[in-house]
């Protein structure tokens, strides 16, 4: 997976320099959390549902070999070709093979994070194919030549004005107003309809794979997934091994959790189950269907201390509730997976060397874990990744040395008291009249953006000791 995650701090600082984008994100940061929180509250015992689905997911992952084999057998019985891809390149090549075999020219795609992860579009386009993203958000960023900023709402960073300008520039419909969102949606529908009808191959993702019947489940709010799946003669489902659930009822339980956590709806407008190619008497549907299951490091995650991360159902609630994500924006993470889930997943799918900034993009505020429908202890996993950075010498040496020294000093109270007493008394003398210090040696990270409030005269332990001694005399 290609990432530019180690420039997170610089990328975030740039993002903070753009007032309009900051404002758009602030609106989302205020709007999205209550949407989820209200839906969870109205459900009743949402925590019980979370615990149930977590148990199901854990069970499925612990028995992944069994359920994958069952899924594969069922899906083949339904008439699907089932492929396993160890890496992103393997998935892309499998798709290319299918495309070439059918001499396809045009591809209509539903929203798929897996193909974002593998960079499929660029591969298909350089092979001369026309790829059209049909999820409205994905379509917008494809037209703008951008990457998703959010795993569920890829174009959430775009304001209505920007989208209007984009459509006026990209769609050749002459002078027109496009005065509001419905007008823009209507125009996108008109454009996309042609692409659905012209496509030789449809590509979609999956929210779940059901082992007992070999179906894949997909949720959308636009119905574009169904058009990609049913209109072109060939369908390719690109998904990953960790989407497996044992039973149809598990997918239904997961669905109730997923949609409330994502958009606050009880259910999405479209929830579809794809079984396979059209049968003899079916009036429509694809004649050939493929399912490609990507591993791309997931087996390694399953065997690691980070296996809880595979419980993720890609709802995006952790992004919406993360103040660092809302401040920095999704693009700063330099990965298709941003926010708290992305800060865990990105280093695991690429490498800690390439993404060691991300586990530090966290104040340990715990809001992500509070809302994660899959009960993933995200702050703990992020801290464990920081532990690995320390162990492997990936974090800055002066930080490691400074904190190690501090922890050592803290175990030697006499010396600690003496040194901190000196520092505090100096800080007090320098800053007592003004109330704050604008510069401090070895603390430029703090003082670059804030003063240090002047300490009182003498530490508590010094003052307390003096008072006790005075009381004893």
């Amino acid at each position, binding site marked *: 997976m290609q990432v530019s995650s180690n420039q997170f701090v610089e990328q975030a600082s740039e993002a903070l320099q753009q007032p309009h984008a900051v404002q758009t994100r602030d609106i989302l940061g205020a709007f999205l959390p209550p949407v989820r929180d209200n839906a969870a509250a109205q459900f009743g015992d949402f925590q019980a549902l979370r615990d149930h689905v977590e148990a199901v997911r854990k069970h499925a992952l612990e028995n992944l070999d069994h359920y994958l084999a069952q899924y594969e057998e069922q899906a083949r019985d339904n008439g699907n070709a089932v492929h396993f891809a160890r890496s992103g390149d393997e998935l892309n090549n499998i798709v290319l093979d299918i495309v070439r075999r059918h001499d396809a020219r045009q591809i209509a795609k539903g929203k798929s994070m897996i193909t974002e992860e593998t960079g499929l579009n660029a591969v298909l386009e350089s092979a001369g194919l026309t790829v059209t993203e049909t999820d409205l958000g994905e379509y917008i960023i494809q037209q703008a030549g951008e990457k998703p900023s959010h795993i569920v709402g890829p174009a959430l960073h775009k304001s209505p004005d920007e989208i209007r300008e984009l459509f006026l520039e990209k769609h050749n419909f002459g002078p027109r107003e496009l005065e509001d969102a419905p007008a823009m949606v209507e125009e996108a529908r008109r454009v996309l309809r042609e692409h659905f009808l012209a496509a030789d191959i449809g590509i979609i993702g999956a929210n779940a794979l059901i082992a007992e019947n070999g179906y894949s489940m997909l949720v959308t709010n636009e119905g574009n997934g169904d058009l990609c799946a049913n209109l072109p003669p060939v369908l390719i489902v690109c998904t990953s091994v960790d989407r497996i659930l044992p039973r149809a009822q598990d997918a239904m339980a997961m669905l109730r959790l997923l949609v409330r956590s994502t958009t606050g709806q009880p259910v999405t407008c479209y929830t579809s189950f794809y079984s396979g190619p059209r049968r003899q008497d079916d009036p429509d549907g694809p004649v050939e269907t493929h399912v490609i299951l990507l591993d791309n490091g997931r087996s390694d995650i399953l065997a690691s201390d980070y296996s809880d991360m595979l419980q993720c159902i890609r709802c995006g609630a952790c992004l919406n509730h993360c103040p660092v994500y809302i401040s920095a924006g999704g693009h700063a993470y330099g990965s298709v997976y941003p926010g708290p889930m992305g800060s865990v997943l990105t280093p695991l799918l690429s490498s800690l060397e390439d993404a060691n900034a991300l586990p530090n993009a966290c104040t340990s505020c715990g809001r992500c874990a509070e809302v994660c429908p899959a009960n993933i202890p995200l702050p703990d996993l992020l801290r464990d990744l920081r532990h690995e950075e320390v162990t492997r010498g990936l974090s800055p040496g002066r930080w490691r040395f400074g904190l190690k020294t501090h922890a050592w000093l803290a175990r030697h109270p006499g010396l600690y008291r003496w040194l901190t007493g000196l520092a505090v008394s100096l800080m007090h003398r320098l800053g007592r009249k003004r109330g704050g210090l604008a510069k401090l040696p070895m603390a430029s990270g*703090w003082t670059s953006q804030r003063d240090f409030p002047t300490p009182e005269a003498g530490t508590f332990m010094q003052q307390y000791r003096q008072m006790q001694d005075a009381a004893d005399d």
Partner: protein
Amino acid sequence: MTPNLEADSPQSPRYRVALFATCLADLFRPSVAFASIQLLEEAGCEVIVPEAQTCCGQPAYNTGDYEATIPLARSVVAMLEPFEYVVIPSGSCAGMIGTHYPRLLEGQWRQRAQDLAAKTYELTAFLDEVAGLKRDEPSNSGETVTYHDSCAGLRELNIRQQPRDLLQRLCDITVSEMDQTEVCCGFGGTFCAKMPDISAKMADDKLANASQTGAAVLAGGDLGCLLNLAGRARREGADIEIRHIAEILAGETTPALGKPQD
């Protein structure tokens, strides 16, 4: 404000409490520790300040240096476990001991950490739930106060209502609630120094939400957050007084954080 060390201690204190002052209060805001002693004594506690206390180890722990944290955590456990209760004027340090020590330590140390966790309280939780501190006549400074819910206290220890109830009961102060009171202020320990621009943005949001209430005082239960907010408020010229809740409850009159001291 100084504790009344010379007063006769009650015949039999209701609780024998060790105060873990926290490194931030020890070094940068002794008023918080003195106010805590005063409140605990008012609640009928005998307060002991263990001599060897320094820091709970959060800076190294949150940065991922578990190896440097473990020996420090063990010495804190050994220092505090003899006491009936341990009270800490900080949700994040109380959460460190109560939630993270048992996760970090192993074997017999984990058991000892769990035993310690069971009797370790954040200050407002102890005053409200255990000691049930009351006053015959609530003191009232006439201040309007808004309250920032610090993350660790809120999410690890479920501290939300206790500080508000104490402000109401002891000081007749109804908190003027700000928008997004449960969102992080951008401190995050070493986060604020590693990613200062993002941290400053979060602090600005918090200060703006606090200012919008019209409250004169922004109170909280964690000095990390408060130092961050007071430092940012000073840098940006935001006019709000920032104080630890212990200072308000105890009627502490030391200049607020970041204000001139003479």
